[in-house]
Protein backbone atom coordinates (compact mmCIF):
# COMPACT_ATOMS: atom_id res chain seq x y z
CA UNK A 1 0.00 0.00 0.00
CA UNK A 2 1.49 3.44 -0.92
CA UNK A 3 2.44 5.64 2.03
CA UNK A 4 -0.22 8.27 1.26
CA UNK A 5 -2.96 5.66 1.10
CA UNK A 6 -1.69 4.10 4.32
CA UNK A 7 -1.84 7.48 6.05
CA UNK A 8 -5.35 8.15 4.78
CA UNK A 9 -6.47 4.74 6.05
CA UNK A 10 -4.86 5.57 9.38
CA UNK A 11 -6.72 8.89 9.53
CA UNK A 12 -10.01 7.13 8.75
CA UNK A 13 -9.34 4.53 11.45
CA UNK A 14 -8.51 7.21 14.02
CA UNK A 15 -11.73 9.07 13.20
CA UNK A 16 -13.66 5.82 13.79
CA UNK A 17 -11.65 5.21 16.99
CA UNK A 18 -10.85 1.75 15.70
CA UNK A 19 -9.60 -0.19 18.78
CA UNK A 20 -7.53 -2.69 16.79
CA UNK A 21 -5.80 0.10 14.91
CA UNK A 22 -4.95 1.87 18.16
CA UNK A 23 -3.63 -1.34 19.72
CA UNK A 24 -1.38 -1.79 16.69
CA UNK A 25 -0.17 1.80 16.82
CA UNK A 26 0.67 1.53 20.53
CA UNK A 27 2.73 -1.60 19.85
CA UNK A 28 4.41 -0.11 16.83
CA UNK A 29 5.35 3.28 18.26
CA UNK A 30 5.91 2.35 21.92
CA UNK A 31 9.69 2.50 21.82
CA UNK A 32 9.94 5.70 19.79
CA UNK A 33 7.33 7.54 21.83
CA UNK A 34 8.71 6.41 25.17
CA UNK A 35 12.25 7.37 24.15
CA UNK A 36 11.04 10.79 23.03
CA UNK A 37 9.22 11.35 26.31
CA UNK A 38 12.21 10.26 28.37
CA UNK A 39 14.45 12.64 26.43
CA UNK A 40 11.96 15.43 26.84
CA UNK A 41 10.84 15.21 30.44
CA UNK A 42 13.97 13.62 31.84
CA UNK A 43 12.17 11.13 34.07
CA UNK A 44 11.13 7.56 33.32
CA UNK A 45 8.09 7.48 35.64
CA UNK A 46 6.73 10.73 34.26
CA UNK A 47 7.46 9.51 30.75
CA UNK A 48 5.45 6.36 31.45
CA UNK A 49 2.44 8.34 32.69
CA UNK A 50 2.64 10.69 29.74
CA UNK A 51 2.97 7.74 27.39
CA UNK A 52 -0.51 6.57 28.44
CA UNK A 53 -1.88 10.11 28.36
CA UNK A 54 -0.57 10.57 24.83
CA UNK A 55 -2.47 7.54 23.57
CA UNK A 56 -5.65 8.63 25.34
CA UNK A 57 -5.22 12.00 23.62
CA UNK A 58 -4.70 10.22 20.28
CA UNK A 59 -8.02 8.46 20.83
CA UNK A 60 -9.78 11.69 21.84
CA UNK A 61 -8.37 13.81 19.03
CA UNK A 62 -7.92 11.22 16.33
CA UNK A 63 -10.21 13.19 14.03
CA UNK A 64 -7.60 15.98 13.96
CA UNK A 65 -5.03 13.82 12.16
CA UNK A 66 -5.49 14.60 8.47
CA UNK A 67 -3.26 11.87 7.04
CA UNK A 68 -1.22 14.41 5.07
CA UNK A 69 1.82 14.32 7.32
CA UNK A 70 3.66 11.49 9.03
CA UNK A 71 1.75 9.98 11.94
CA UNK A 72 4.81 10.17 14.20
CA UNK A 73 5.09 13.93 13.64
CA UNK A 74 1.54 14.34 14.93
CA UNK A 75 2.12 11.85 17.75
CA UNK A 76 5.26 13.62 18.96
CA UNK A 77 3.58 17.02 18.91
CA UNK A 78 0.75 15.64 21.09
CA UNK A 79 3.29 14.18 23.52
CA UNK A 80 5.22 17.45 23.56
CA UNK A 81 2.11 19.44 24.43
CA UNK A 82 1.41 17.08 27.32
CA UNK A 83 4.93 17.54 28.68
CA UNK A 84 4.59 21.33 28.46
CA UNK A 85 1.14 21.20 30.14
CA UNK A 86 2.54 19.07 32.94
CA UNK A 87 5.41 21.44 33.59
CA UNK A 88 3.14 24.46 33.45
CA UNK A 89 0.96 22.87 36.10
CA UNK A 90 3.95 22.01 38.27
CA UNK A 91 5.75 25.32 37.82
CA UNK A 92 4.96 28.31 35.65
CA UNK A 93 7.77 27.74 33.18
CA UNK A 94 8.27 26.74 29.60
CA UNK A 95 10.15 23.83 28.11
CA UNK A 96 13.16 26.12 27.67
CA UNK A 97 13.79 26.04 31.41
CA UNK A 98 13.50 22.28 31.61
CA UNK A 99 17.03 21.01 32.01
CA UNK A 100 18.69 18.55 34.32
CA UNK A 101 15.29 17.90 35.84
CA UNK A 102 16.32 14.57 37.27
CA UNK A 103 19.58 12.93 38.00
CA UNK A 104 20.44 10.57 35.17
CA UNK A 105 16.90 10.08 33.85
CA UNK A 106 17.96 7.86 30.96
CA UNK A 107 19.78 5.38 33.12
CA UNK A 108 19.41 1.70 32.44
CA UNK A 109 17.04 0.40 35.12
CA UNK A 110 17.60 -2.69 37.20
CA UNK A 111 15.56 -5.75 36.21
CA UNK A 112 14.72 -7.08 32.77
CA UNK A 113 17.97 -8.21 31.13
CA UNK A 114 20.73 -10.04 32.99
CA UNK A 115 22.86 -8.11 35.47
CA UNK A 116 25.97 -8.64 33.33
CA UNK A 117 24.27 -7.32 30.19
CA UNK A 118 23.02 -4.32 32.10
CA UNK A 119 26.42 -3.58 33.56
CA UNK A 120 28.06 -3.72 30.14
CA UNK A 121 25.36 -1.57 28.57
CA UNK A 122 25.59 0.92 31.41
CA UNK A 123 29.33 1.22 31.06
CA UNK A 124 29.19 1.72 27.31
CA UNK A 125 26.43 4.30 27.44
CA UNK A 126 27.27 6.03 30.71
CA UNK A 127 29.33 8.81 29.15
CA UNK A 128 26.77 9.61 26.49
CA UNK A 129 23.80 9.47 28.84
CA UNK A 130 25.52 11.72 31.32
CA UNK A 131 26.31 14.18 28.56
CA UNK A 132 22.76 14.05 27.24
CA UNK A 133 21.38 14.67 30.72
CA UNK A 134 23.46 17.79 30.97
CA UNK A 135 22.02 19.19 27.76
CA UNK A 136 18.92 21.39 28.02
CA UNK A 137 15.73 19.47 27.11
CA UNK A 138 15.06 21.64 24.06
CA UNK A 139 18.42 20.63 22.60
CA UNK A 140 18.08 16.94 23.58
CA UNK A 141 14.72 16.95 21.88
CA UNK A 142 15.89 18.21 18.49
CA UNK A 143 18.93 15.94 18.53
CA UNK A 144 16.66 12.95 19.09
CA UNK A 145 14.21 13.99 16.40
CA UNK A 146 16.95 14.60 13.86
CA UNK A 147 19.49 11.89 14.52
CA UNK A 148 17.48 9.08 16.07
CA UNK A 149 14.07 9.60 14.50
CA UNK A 150 15.61 10.83 11.23
CA UNK A 151 12.90 13.46 10.85
CA UNK A 152 13.35 16.19 8.24
CA UNK A 153 13.96 19.73 9.46
CA UNK A 154 10.44 20.76 8.33
CA UNK A 155 8.93 17.87 10.29
CA UNK A 156 10.88 18.84 13.41
CA UNK A 157 9.58 22.39 12.99
CA UNK A 158 6.01 21.01 13.00
CA UNK A 159 6.62 18.88 16.10
CA UNK A 160 8.17 21.66 18.16
CA UNK A 161 5.94 24.35 16.62
CA UNK A 162 8.90 26.61 15.89
CA UNK A 163 10.31 28.28 12.78
CA UNK A 164 12.93 26.48 10.73
CA UNK A 165 15.62 28.92 11.90
CA UNK A 166 15.00 27.92 15.50
CA UNK A 167 15.20 24.23 14.61
CA UNK A 168 18.53 24.71 12.86
CA UNK A 169 20.05 26.87 15.57
CA UNK A 170 19.01 24.35 18.25
CA UNK A 171 20.52 21.53 16.22
CA UNK A 172 23.79 23.37 15.76
CA UNK A 173 23.94 24.31 19.44
CA UNK A 174 22.93 20.81 20.53
CA UNK A 175 25.48 19.08 18.35
CA UNK A 176 28.24 21.45 19.39
CA UNK A 177 27.43 21.11 23.09
CA UNK A 178 27.10 17.34 22.89
CA UNK A 179 30.46 17.10 21.18
CA UNK A 180 32.06 19.26 23.86
CA UNK A 181 30.41 17.35 26.68
CA UNK A 182 31.45 13.98 25.26
CA UNK A 183 34.99 15.23 24.86
CA UNK A 184 34.99 16.46 28.45
CA UNK A 185 33.61 13.13 29.68
CA UNK A 186 36.44 11.11 28.15
CA UNK A 187 38.96 9.81 30.69
Amino acid at each position, binding site marked *: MPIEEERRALARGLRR*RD*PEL*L*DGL*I*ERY*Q*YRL*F*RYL*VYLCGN*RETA*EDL*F*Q*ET*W*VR*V*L*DRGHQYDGKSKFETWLFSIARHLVIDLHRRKRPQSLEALTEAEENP*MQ*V*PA*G*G*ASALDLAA*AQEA*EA*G*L*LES*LNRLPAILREV*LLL*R*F*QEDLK*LEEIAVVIAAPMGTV*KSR*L*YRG*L*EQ*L*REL*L*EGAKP
Partner: protein
Amino acid sequence: MNDDRHATAERLILQEQVEGISAEERQWLSRHLEQCADCALPARRTAEALRSLRAVSIPLPAGLADRAQLRVYWRAEELEERTREAWTMWIACGIAWILGLLTAPLVWRGFEWVGGLAGLPSLVWQTGFVVWWTAPALVAAIVLIARFGAAGQREQMR
Protein backbone atom coordinates in the same frame (compact mmCIF):
# COMPACT_ATOMS: atom_id res chain seq x y z
CA MET B 1 42.68 33.68 4.74
CA ASN B 2 43.88 30.54 6.54
CA ASP B 3 41.58 31.32 9.51
CA ASP B 4 38.74 31.71 7.05
CA ARG B 5 39.34 28.21 5.73
CA HIS B 6 39.29 26.72 9.22
CA ALA B 7 36.11 28.62 10.11
CA THR B 8 34.49 27.43 6.87
CA ALA B 9 35.53 23.86 7.61
CA GLU B 10 34.13 24.09 11.14
CA ARG B 11 30.84 25.44 9.78
CA LEU B 12 30.61 22.76 7.09
CA ILE B 13 31.33 19.91 9.54
CA LEU B 14 28.20 20.78 11.52
CA GLN B 15 26.16 21.86 8.50
CA GLU B 16 26.78 18.51 6.82
CA GLN B 17 25.05 16.74 9.70
CA VAL B 18 22.27 19.25 10.32
CA GLU B 19 21.06 20.33 6.90
CA GLY B 20 23.46 18.78 4.41
CA ILE B 21 26.05 20.36 2.11
CA SER B 22 26.58 20.38 -1.65
CA ALA B 23 28.86 17.92 -3.47
CA GLU B 24 31.41 20.70 -4.09
CA GLU B 25 31.43 21.68 -0.44
CA ARG B 26 31.86 18.05 0.58
CA GLN B 27 34.75 17.66 -1.82
CA TRP B 28 36.40 20.83 -0.51
CA LEU B 29 35.85 19.73 3.10
CA SER B 30 37.36 16.27 2.51
CA ARG B 31 40.42 17.79 0.91
CA HIS B 32 40.79 20.27 3.75
CA LEU B 33 40.37 17.62 6.45
CA GLU B 34 43.06 15.47 4.84
CA GLN B 35 45.52 18.32 5.14
CA CYS B 36 44.44 19.93 8.41
CA ALA B 37 44.70 17.93 11.63
CA ASP B 38 43.17 20.79 13.67
CA CYS B 39 39.93 20.56 11.68
CA ALA B 40 39.99 16.78 11.33
CA LEU B 41 39.73 16.40 15.11
CA PRO B 42 36.35 18.18 15.56
CA ALA B 43 35.07 16.36 12.46
CA ARG B 44 35.96 13.04 14.05
CA ARG B 45 34.44 14.08 17.38
CA THR B 46 31.22 15.11 15.69
CA ALA B 47 31.00 11.80 13.86
CA GLU B 48 31.68 9.95 17.13
CA ALA B 49 29.06 11.96 19.01
CA LEU B 50 26.46 11.13 16.38
CA ARG B 51 27.41 7.47 16.29
CA SER B 52 27.03 7.28 20.06
CA LEU B 53 23.76 9.18 19.96
CA ARG B 54 22.32 6.81 17.38
CA ALA B 55 23.46 3.80 19.38
CA VAL B 56 21.92 4.82 22.71
CA SER B 57 18.96 2.71 23.76
CA ILE B 58 16.27 3.38 26.34
CA PRO B 59 14.95 0.19 27.97
CA LEU B 60 11.16 -0.06 27.87
CA PRO B 61 9.31 -0.65 31.16
CA ALA B 62 7.65 -4.07 31.25
CA GLY B 63 4.02 -4.06 30.13
CA LEU B 64 4.16 -0.47 28.90
CA ALA B 65 2.07 -1.13 25.79
CA ASP B 66 -0.41 -3.36 27.67
CA ARG B 67 -1.13 -0.67 30.25
CA ALA B 68 -1.58 1.97 27.58
CA GLN B 69 -3.90 -0.32 25.60
CA LEU B 70 -6.01 -0.88 28.69
CA ARG B 71 -6.22 2.87 29.40
CA VAL B 72 -7.22 3.51 25.81
CA TYR B 73 -9.84 0.75 26.00
CA TRP B 74 -11.40 2.28 29.14
CA ARG B 75 -11.38 5.71 27.59
CA ALA B 76 -13.01 4.37 24.41
CA GLU B 77 -15.77 2.79 26.53
CA GLU B 78 -16.26 6.07 28.37
CA LEU B 79 -16.47 8.03 25.11
CA GLU B 80 -18.91 5.54 23.64
CA GLU B 81 -21.12 5.82 26.72
CA ARG B 82 -20.96 9.60 26.52
CA THR B 83 -21.88 9.53 22.84
CA ARG B 84 -24.85 7.23 23.59
CA GLU B 85 -26.03 9.59 26.35
CA ALA B 86 -25.67 12.60 24.07
CA TRP B 87 -27.71 10.90 21.32
CA THR B 88 -30.45 9.91 23.79
CA MET B 89 -30.59 13.46 25.07
CA TRP B 90 -30.75 15.05 21.61
CA ILE B 91 -33.48 12.63 20.51
CA ALA B 92 -35.46 13.42 23.69
CA CYS B 93 -34.98 17.15 23.05
CA GLY B 94 -36.15 16.75 19.45
CA ILE B 95 -39.28 14.82 20.46
CA ALA B 96 -40.05 17.36 23.20
CA TRP B 97 -39.64 20.23 20.73
CA ILE B 98 -41.94 18.62 18.15
CA LEU B 99 -44.57 17.82 20.78
CA GLY B 100 -44.29 21.35 22.16
CA LEU B 101 -44.77 22.79 18.71
CA LEU B 102 -47.78 20.58 17.96
CA THR B 103 -49.51 21.27 21.27
CA ALA B 104 -48.68 25.01 21.40
CA PRO B 105 -52.05 26.17 19.95
CA LEU B 106 -53.97 24.03 22.46
CA VAL B 107 -51.87 25.25 25.38
CA TRP B 108 -52.28 28.84 24.17
CA ARG B 109 -56.08 28.40 24.27
CA GLY B 110 -55.79 26.75 27.67
CA PHE B 111 -53.86 29.72 29.06
CA GLU B 112 -56.32 32.11 27.45
CA TRP B 113 -59.27 30.23 29.02
CA VAL B 114 -57.69 30.10 32.50
CA GLY B 115 -56.69 33.79 32.20
CA GLY B 116 -60.25 34.73 31.25
CA LEU B 117 -61.72 32.60 34.03
CA ALA B 118 -59.46 34.19 36.62
CA GLY B 119 -59.97 37.65 35.19
CA LEU B 120 -56.21 38.13 34.55
CA PRO B 121 -54.91 40.81 32.17
CA SER B 122 -53.78 39.35 28.79
CA LEU B 123 -50.12 40.26 29.48
CA VAL B 124 -50.08 38.02 32.57
CA TRP B 125 -51.41 34.82 30.98
CA GLN B 126 -49.37 35.47 27.82
CA THR B 127 -46.22 35.79 29.99
CA GLY B 128 -47.23 32.54 31.67
CA PHE B 129 -47.43 30.88 28.27
CA VAL B 130 -43.98 32.16 27.28
CA VAL B 131 -42.50 30.88 30.56
CA TRP B 132 -44.18 27.49 30.05
CA TRP B 133 -42.75 27.38 26.51
CA THR B 134 -39.16 28.43 27.32
CA ALA B 135 -38.63 26.99 30.81
CA PRO B 136 -37.81 23.38 29.74
CA ALA B 137 -35.34 24.60 27.11
CA LEU B 138 -33.67 26.91 29.64
CA VAL B 139 -33.36 24.12 32.22
CA ALA B 140 -31.94 21.75 29.58
CA ALA B 141 -29.43 24.42 28.48
CA ILE B 142 -28.29 25.03 32.08
CA VAL B 143 -27.88 21.28 32.67
CA LEU B 144 -25.90 20.89 29.43
CA ILE B 145 -23.61 23.84 30.19
CA ALA B 146 -22.95 22.50 33.69
CA ARG B 147 -22.18 19.01 32.34
CA PHE B 148 -19.86 20.20 29.57
CA GLY B 149 -18.18 22.59 31.99
CA ALA B 150 -17.51 19.78 34.46
CA ALA B 151 -16.26 17.49 31.68
CA GLY B 152 -13.91 20.23 30.44
CA GLN B 153 -12.51 20.74 33.92
CA ARG B 154 -11.94 16.99 34.30
CA GLU B 155 -10.04 17.00 30.98
CA GLN B 156 -7.84 19.84 32.16
CA MET B 157 -7.14 18.14 35.47
CA ARG B 158 -5.94 14.97 33.73
